[in-house]
């Protein structure tokens, strides 16, 4: 297939996944911010949302230091000046979709196109919490529909594999970032690790990735930081975990390699990350520091992205 087509499919899936992640970040932040002050509810949740989404610096350039619910929601969801706002994700996804319409199925196109049309209905100013909640669930549903449409209707060929690789690279990045929210929400000094505030924060994170029920099924214990991290990093049963993402990335890159009859550095890199995850233990991760682990994972994941680009998409 055309390199440009593969590139467009890859990024199209990344942007649809990213929109979903941003919606989830906003969701979890709102939950955290609503914790009653008696539970030590702090004031820096909205700032942490920006850090998690990776656009704190840009926000500072545009808005300065002041962060509050309104300006952060607007920045992450709608701001045209934020290239990764949900609105821009949908815009870019649709632009990409238009240039690869021939590689998309009708169902995928219709999902993107109708989301893009629907987006216009949400006014950005003075959105009530209820409207925002509706908007966020619209975003999540769109990603679900897109994912389902791709899964159910695409031919199993390189077009499908490239779009899946894009989706899982983005998802791995997003899971890592959501997990990192916890690092950015500093616990107040008086609060004990494992105390009620800590509990609610970890539970919110699980909820934001629709994993709270899964957590109970898997661990049959109350929410504990190392178990949450285990679920989202190492547990292969959990479809958002880094391990699961890399199993998929490896698999689809191998499909591509088999189809083209040639392995390359992208395949090697993905496999080495998967092996590393397989050899990791939670104790070690917490020993070296969860934040540091996530940081280096995000770096490796980005490297895979650029390797895929060099190998196939130029």
């Amino acid at each position, binding site marked *: 297939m055309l390199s*440009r087509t593969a590139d467009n499919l890859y990024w199209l899936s990344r942007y649809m996944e990213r929109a979903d992640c941003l919606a989830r970040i906003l969701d979890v932040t709102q939950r955290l911010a609503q914790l009653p002050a008696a539970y030590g509810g702090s004031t820096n949740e909205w700032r942490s949302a920006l850090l998690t989404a990776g656009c704190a610096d840009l926000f500072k350039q545009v808005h300065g230091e002041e962060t509050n619910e309104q300006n952060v929601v607007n920045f992450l969801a709608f701001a045209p000046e934020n290239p990764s706002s949900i609105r821009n994700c949908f815009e870019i996804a649709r632009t990409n979709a238009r240039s690869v*319409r*021939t590689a998309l199925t009708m169902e995928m*196109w219709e999902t993107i196109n109708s989301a893009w049309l629907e987006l216009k209905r949400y006014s950005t100013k003075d959105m009530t919490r209820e409207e925002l909640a509706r908007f966020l669930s619209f975003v999540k549903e769109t990603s679900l529909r897109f994912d389902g449409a791709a899964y159910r209707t695409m031919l199993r060929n390189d077009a499908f594999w490239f779009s899946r690789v894009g989706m899982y690279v983005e998802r791995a990045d997003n899971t890592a970032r959501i997990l990192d929210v916890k690092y950015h929400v500093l616990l107040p000094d008086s609060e004990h690790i494992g105390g009620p505030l800590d509990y609610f924060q970890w539970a919110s994170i699980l909820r934001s990735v629709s994993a709270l029920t899964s957590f109970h099924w898997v661990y049959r214990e109350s929410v504990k930081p190392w178990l949450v991290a285990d679920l989202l990093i190492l547990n292969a049963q959990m479809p958002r975990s880094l391990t699961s993402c890399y199993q998929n990335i490896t698999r689809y890159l191998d499909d591509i390699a088999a189809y083209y009859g040639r392995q390359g550095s992208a395949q090697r890199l993905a496999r080495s990350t998967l092996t590393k995850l397989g050899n990791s233990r939670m104790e070690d991760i917490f020993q070296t520091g969860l934040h540091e682990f996530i940081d280096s994972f995000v770096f490796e994941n980005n490297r895979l992205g650029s390797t895929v680009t060099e190998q196939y998409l130029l």
Partner: protein
Amino acid sequence: MSVAFDEMTNADGSIRSAYTALARWLSNVPPDVLDFRRKEAEFIFRRIGITFAVYGDSDAQERLIPFDIIPRILTGTEWRRMSRGLEQRVKALNLYLKDIYSRREILKAGVVPEDLVYQNPAFRPEMNGQKVPHDLYVHIAGIDVVRVDSETFYVLEDNARTPSGVSYMLENREIMMRLFPELFADNRVAPVENYTDELLATLKSVAPLSASSDPVVVVLTPGIYNSAYYEHSFLADKLGVELVEGRDLFVRSDVVYMRTTEGPRRVDVIYRRLDDDFLDPLTFRPDSALGVPGLMSAYNAGNVTLTNAVGTGVADDKAVYSYMPDIIRFYLGEEPLLKNVPTWRCREADHLKYVLDHLNELVVKEVHGSGGYGMLIGPRADKAQIELFRAKLKQDPTNFIAQPTLALSTCPTFVEEGIAPRHVDLRPFVLTGSDRVRIVPGGLTRVALEAGSLVVNSSQGGGTKDTWVLEES
């Protein structure tokens, strides 16, 4: 202006035969059902994203072309007569282009004035003496035809560059079959959906001799911001070929390749929807970022076929148009089967004088204009507009032609106030391959939605209709 010929209803109120079943259906169907289905059609079009961009209209970057749910109908007999005329005309266009870029017999014979070729901005000196595969230039033509009475069809315009609109012909049929299956049960409508198969066969038939037995065909688009982008992607999709932009192609040793995830792949036939000017920055506009550097040298080396060929614009402007009957006679020794609209060439002094004296009756058009821009419709123009054109004409007469205001036929159309007659034209598509000419029965009917308006162009508020050719049972 006389009362226009209506395609459904005769002056005495009787229904013309082609429309019998439709008229019966229309008289039975409640208006709210029609309205409901119209809305449904619009909803489907918008969801599929069949849109077009209007230049200079940033507010509505993507608009829908209004679709009218009442079909326009031709009988098989009418169609066969027309299609013979279309084939004849496109044959002559191809012979003319071959001649213009080689021996120029027609200029030597004095049939067409030289400056119409040499002064023509669409003339490509680069094509002089250049052999093109199978001597074909216009593989895909869109010939605009209007009807003025039950017998007479006029050719209004030849489109020999990159005619568009065929996706609407196909989508309109698709949507009609979805919305009104009962109508198709009552009428034997010739199918059009094989158009893309015919197009692919045509494109493959004109591959260069050096191509493999299964030539690689691509559609070349200027990109998503082009007004006809939807059509480009639609066609590539239906043809099952790659939709490429200039940056997806490169030329090495006079061979064209596309960049794929598996490395370079040779390209044999490029159905290009990009104007000549932008094709190759090394030959034409150096600032074109849309083209492929070196494409023309690959073309000249005979390693790739461009459809349509480079330089076809020299055959389809409105000044050349007026010579088409002579061009047909010159190359084919036949009388034209389809008439031209009587045309005054303002380049000729006596014609210009007539035109200046009758501006309020005539339609004046720019020779190189298209899309309904830059024209004067005398009977509808106010004094100021007429004077403006008078000045333009005097200043640069060669740039204009004039035609009588035709009473274009009307067809029943579903508008605000109900079903009312509106003026229509027709663009059938003529495919010319190395083996034969292919024309699917039908075309794109464009309709001027405003009462009395004669401007059918989509950029100026025109709509489209499904076009039926009835097969006699």
